[in-house]
C-alpha cells in the first residue's frame, strides 16, 4: 500500500504518459464547461479489455495525484474482480493510498452504482461508461445523433419512453435511465440503476464519465440540475424495495438479490458493501444478519 511509483520505474505515475494525461484533462475541462456534452478524446489502449472500465481508468489516471485516496467499486461492491484489479492497478502504477471507505476517498471510480453515502465537495466520482450515446439504439448514425444533440431535438428519447408505457403500462427502464443535464443535454448516466438518478442532481461532488471504447468523456459539474426524463402523467419514480437489507436492515439503500441455495432460497442485501458494513458495525442487524460483536473479530 505504501509503495511509491519509484518502485516501478518502468511506469510513469498512474500508467499514462504526461502528454496523454494532458489530452484527457483538456477533454475533462471541456466536458465540465459543457455539462452533459460528450467530448471526443483520443482513448488509449489500456492493459485491460474494452468493457472492463478502460474509459474510467483513463479518467482516473488523468486526475489522480500522489495525495489522492482511491476507492473503486463495481456494482457497489469493493470486493469484486473488476474493483479489486483496478484498485491494485493504481496501487502499483501510482502508489496512491486506496480505501473501501466512501468518506475517506477523494476519487471514487465506479461501475454501475453511486455510493449510498452523500458525496462531498472534495470528492470526484468517475463512472465507467459502456455506451455514452443515449440515442444510440434509436438512431444508429453518429452524424445524426450529434445533430440531434446540437439542436436539442430530443423528441426521440421520449418516443422510447412512450414505447415502454405502451408496452408495459409504465416506464420500464430501470437502469441507464436518461437524464437532462442543466436543461440542455440529454445524457446517459451509464448503467446505474434509476434508484441512483436523484443522487446526481445538485451533487456536491464532481462527476466524470469515461467511455474508452467509444472514446467519449462527459461530466456533471458540482451542483448541477439533473432531471430524469418522464411524462407529466407518468412521472419518474426511483425504484423502491418492499423489504429491508437482510444483513443490515437498511430500508433506504439499493438491494441486490443473492441466491443462497438451489432450492429457491434468496436474500436481498445492500449492493453498496461499505454502506452495509458501516451499518452493521453501528449495530444494525437485518433478518438474516448476525450481530457484529467483539467476539466475532
Amino acid at each position, binding site marked *: 500500500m505504501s509503495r511509491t511509483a519509484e518502485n516501478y520505474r518502468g511506469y510513469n505515475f498512474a500508467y499514462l504518459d504526461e502528454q496523454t494525461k494532458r489530452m484527457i484533462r483538456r477533454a475533462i475541462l471541456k466536458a465540465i464547461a459543457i455539462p452533459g456534452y460528450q467530448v471526443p478524446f483520443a482513448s488509449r489502449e489500456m492493459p485491460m479489455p474494452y468493457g472492463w472500465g478502460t474509459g474510467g481508468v483513463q479518467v482516473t489516471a488523468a486526475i489522480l495525484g500522489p495525495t489522492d485516496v482511491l476507492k473503486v467499486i463495481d456494482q457497489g461492491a469493493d470486493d469484486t474482480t473488476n474493483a479489486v484489479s483496478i484498485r491494485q492497478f493504481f496501487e502499483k502504477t501510482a502508489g496512491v493510498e486506496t480505501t473501501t471507505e466512501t468518506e475517506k476517498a477523494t476519487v471514487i471510480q465506479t461501475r454501475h452504482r453511486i455510493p449510498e453515502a452523500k458525496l462531498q465537495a472534495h470528492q470526484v466520482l468517475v463512472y465507467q461508461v459502456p455506451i455514452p450515446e443515449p440515442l444510440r439504439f434509436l438512431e444508429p448514425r453518429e452524424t445524426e445523433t450529434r*445533430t440531434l444533440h446540437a439542436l436539442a431535438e430530443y*423528441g426521440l428519447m*421520449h*418516443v422510447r419512453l412512450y414505447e415502454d408505457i*405502451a*408496452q408495459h403500462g409504465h416506464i420500464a427502464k430501470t437502469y441507464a435511465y436518461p437524464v437532462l443535464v442543466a436543461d440542455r443535454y440529454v445524457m446517459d448516466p451509464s448503467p446505474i440503476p434509476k434508484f441512483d438518478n436523484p443522487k446526481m442532481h445538485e451533487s456536491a461532488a464532481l462527476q466524470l464519465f469515461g467511455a474508452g471504447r467509444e472514446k467519449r468523456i462527459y461530466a456533471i459539474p458540482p451542483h448541477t440540475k439533473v432531471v430524469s426524463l418522464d411524462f407529466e*402523467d407518468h412521472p419518474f419514480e426511483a425504484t423502491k424495495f418492499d423489504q429491508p437489507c437482510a444483513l443490515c436492515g437498511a430500508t433506504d439503500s439499493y438491494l441486490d438479490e443473492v441466491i443462497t441455495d438451489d432450492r429457491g432460497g434468496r436474500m436481498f442485501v445492500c449492493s453498496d458493501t461499505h454502506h452495509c458494513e458501516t451499518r452493521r458495525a453501528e449495530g444494525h442487524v437485518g433478518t438474516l444478519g448476525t450481530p457484529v460483536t467483539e467476539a466475532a473479530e
Partner: protein
Amino acid sequence: MTNLSASPLLVAEGLSKFYGLRIGCRNVSFALEPGEVLAIVGESGSGKTTLLNLLSGQLAPDAGAVRYRMRDGETKNLLDLTEAERRFLARTDWGFVHQDARNGLRMGVSAGGNIGERLMGVGDRHYGRIRETAQGWLSRVEIDISRIDDKPTQFSGGMRQRLQIARNLVTHPRLVFMDEPTGGLDVSVQARLLDLIRGLVADLGLAVVLVTHDLSVARLLSHRILVMKDGHVIEAGLTDRVLDDPQEAYTQLLVSSVLAA
C-alpha cells in the same frame, strides 16, 4: 379553397442543381398557393426528385432560391434559415411522404409512437394526450385503433403508407411533399389511398407538392401540373388543360402512353 388574396405559400425562383456536368434540374420557377396541389410529372431521371429535394430544403441548389411563407406570415428564403429552423419547419409545418414507407417511418417503433414522435418533438410531455391524438389519427386514416401498439413491420404496404401520412399530418402542417405516394401498391389499395389523400387534402386545406410518374394520380389529386424532361420544366398549366390538351410533343407522348383501363 385556394385563397387568391393571400401571397403564395412557396415560391421557387430559377432553381438549378447540377451533378457535375449533368443537369439535375435547371431554372425551375413556380409559385404554390396555400391549399393548392401541384403535381410534378415526368419519366424516371427527369429531375422530379431532385426538384422535390430542393424544394424541401434537403438539397442546396446551385442557383436560385426557395421562398416560404412562415406561419407568422413572413416570407423567408429557405437557404437563409439555420439548420435548426429548417428542421423545425420540416417537422411541424411540413410533411414528407416517401414512396417507401420504410424511409418515412420508424420501423422498430409502434404505430402510436410513430404518430406521437412529432408531438413529443415539439414538447408534448403528456402520455395520455399523445395516445389519444394517435388514436384519433389512426381512425382518420382508417387503421383499426387496436393496432396502435403494433409495429409497422406487421403492417401491409397500404397500411404503412396510411400510417406515414398520419405521422406527417399530426402537427397540422400546411405543406406536404409526396414522392410517389402510391408507388408499389396494387390498384385497389392505390384507389383507397388516393381517396384518403384527396379527402384529407380537402379537409385540412393542405398544399401538396406531389411527384409522380402516374398521370392518373396527378389527374385525380392535383390542380396544376409541371411536366419535366431532362431537368427542365417543359410544360406547366392546370391539370385538366395539360392532360386533355398537351402542347409539347413530349407531353403528348406521355399522355398518349397511358394505358386505357
